[in-house]
């Protein structure tokens, strides 16, 4: 059986009057690659510090494989953390950094040497054993931090914004490297990040935190394609929003939008009654050029060339603006000022109740 299943139950942490975590509950499956995603102030870092044991919650419980961790000090938890700043001990060699946690377990001699060598091979650190942290590059320092945290074979590995300090090329390389490590070790990885691209690209499941609460938990596809709230839809990716009122329900939801008439949308889980105000969310890439469902005429007001794709700003009736993208397979699909017809399938239009008003 896989190890490293984490259960977080109604966790609350306050600093003064501010509840940084407000009754948060979530389950992390053993052996999964889990992402805690959120803006700064969402409580993701506090949750990380609570899981690592650097903070004590005001109420609630954290359990790993059924064992309560809530009051345990950091040194007694089978959880290790890769710090954002890596936090390598500057006065120790790379090998001593990696051996540090193992020595605390009483490991020594041949066994210790073998484990350190194994970790160095796993993280491709060969030849760096006697270097000090200031003598290695940022990418190498990150791999040392990973080796040091993984050397103890924790049940769960916490990664605090692991790619934030790396430049772009290295970042993409490390994403692949982290996925490879996760697949090779089977350890539960918990990635804490503010970067949605990072979370979507690496994690099996993503928990989006918003102001100390769980906004949505699901696969990356769930969060992008089926956001459960306007806040999630806005945070993940880009989205066009149109305000209107429900005009009819049925197979497709009919929404009356001022200046655009009635458009067809995908019914929400809890279907709002006729007359309720709603917002329609439309991902940019779901808008087609040409006739189809929900066809409307539009004027291209702006084209931004990005190489692989172009971004088009479209003006529809009633002052509605849409933003869409098209891959540049045969050059730009439209020019500024051009009148075109756009359409989108009803299933691509997401519905969010906007409350009475």
């Amino acid at each position, binding site marked *: 059986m896989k190890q490293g299943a984490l259960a977080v139950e109604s966790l609350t942490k306050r600093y003064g009057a501010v509840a940084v975590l407000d009754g948060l509950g979530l389950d992390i499956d053993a052996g999964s690659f889990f992402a805690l995603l959120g803006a700064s102030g969402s409580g993701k870092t506090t949750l990380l510090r609570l899981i690592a044991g650097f903070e004590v919650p005001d109420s609630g419980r954290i359990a790993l494989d059924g064992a309560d961790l809530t009051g345990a000090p950091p040194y007694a938890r089978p959880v290790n953390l890769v710090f954002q700043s890596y936090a390598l*001990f500057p006065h120790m060699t790379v090998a001593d950094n990696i051996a540090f946690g193992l020595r605390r377990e009483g490991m020594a001699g041949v066994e210790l040497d073998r484990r350190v060598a194994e970790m160095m091979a796993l993280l491709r650190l060969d030849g760096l054993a006697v270097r000090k942290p200031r003598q290695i590059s940022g990418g190498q320092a990150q791999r040392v931090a990973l080796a040091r945290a993984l050397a103890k074979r924790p049940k769960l590995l916490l990664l605090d914004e692991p790619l934030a300090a790396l430049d772009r090329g290295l970042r993409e390389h490390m994403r692949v490297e982290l996925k490879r490590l996760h697949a090779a070790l089977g350890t539960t990885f918990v990635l804490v990040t503010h970067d949605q691209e990072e979370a979507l690209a690496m994690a099996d499941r993503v928990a989006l935190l918003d102001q100390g609460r769980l906004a949505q938990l699901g696969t990356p596809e769930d969060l992008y394609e089926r956001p459960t709230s306007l806040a999630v839809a806005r945070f993940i990716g880009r989205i066009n929003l149109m305000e209107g009122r429900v005009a009819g329900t049925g197979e497709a939801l009919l929404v009356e939008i001022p200046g655009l008439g009635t458009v067809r949308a995908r019914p929400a889980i809890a279907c709002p009654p006729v007359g309720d105000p709603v917002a329609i969310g439309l991902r940019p890439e779901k808008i087609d050029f040409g006739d189809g469902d929900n066809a409307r005429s539009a004027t291209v007001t702006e084209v931004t060339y990005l190489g692989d794709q172009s971004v088009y700003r479209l003006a529809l009736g009633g002052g509605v603006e849409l933003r869409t993208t098209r891959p540049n397979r045969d050059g730009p699909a439209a020019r500024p000022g051009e009148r075109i017809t756009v359409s989108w399938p009803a299933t691509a239009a997401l519905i969010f109740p906007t409350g009475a008003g």
Partner: protein
Amino acid sequence: MRRWLVGVPALWLVAFFAGPFLLILKVSLSQAVVGQPPFTPLFADGGFRGSLVNFAVLLEDELYVEAILASLALAASSTLACILLGYPMAWAIAGAPKYWRAPLLALVALPFVTSFLIRVYAWIGLLRPTGFLSALLQSLGIIDGPLALVPSTFAVALGMTYTYLPFMVLPIYASLEKIDPALTAAAADLGAKPGRVFWSVTLPLSLPGVLAGSLFVFVPAVGEFVVPELLGGPGTPMIGKVIWQEFFNNRDWPLASALAVVLLALLAVPIALAQRAGAPTAEGLR
């Protein structure tokens, strides 16, 4: 611009260190005479008249060698006492909540507000047979008769430890305060209990501060004159006191100068050692 800025400390050193030192060196090579000035000129009758005679005298006379050794020993023990007292103080200040640190540091430096001489005299008041400490111990029944702690070598060590303690606390505090909290957190995360975190991470990373503090204490303590003069008896012939006596009591300027030169040469050794260790120690001590 930058190149010129280096000139400021250089000028300072030439004016207030190299210049006086060369004067002392010059005097140390001449002989004492009764007159004004009380030493022979270095160049006379068209030739160099300097000699190393004074340095030979220093080596021959046990008094001087003993005074130097006693000074080194006393300075070393005061430095050690400063480390043992100063480290926990610095550690406590560095670990205190942020708004407490500045007031606590100010308290460490507060004794400087009062005249150094008055503070040393205060110690006489505390330590003499009719003083506070003696009276307290007697009233508690710990000792029978009056306790004569001053003058004594112990009182000198105590006085110097007291005097130089802030010079130990401040650099240790500075190096402790610089340690990234993530490093101690990482050590705890990797299974180190608080004691182990201190030995393996905090202490080694604060050694540069201990080294700097030790220099700040040891170097002036070796040549200290006022504290042994006031708190020490005739049994503590410290080098600073001997130099004073040679200059003003015996009016043997050349011999006193030679002593000063030897003292400086001796003090240059630990400074040079610290400098060599210094560059890598900032990060490199294990």
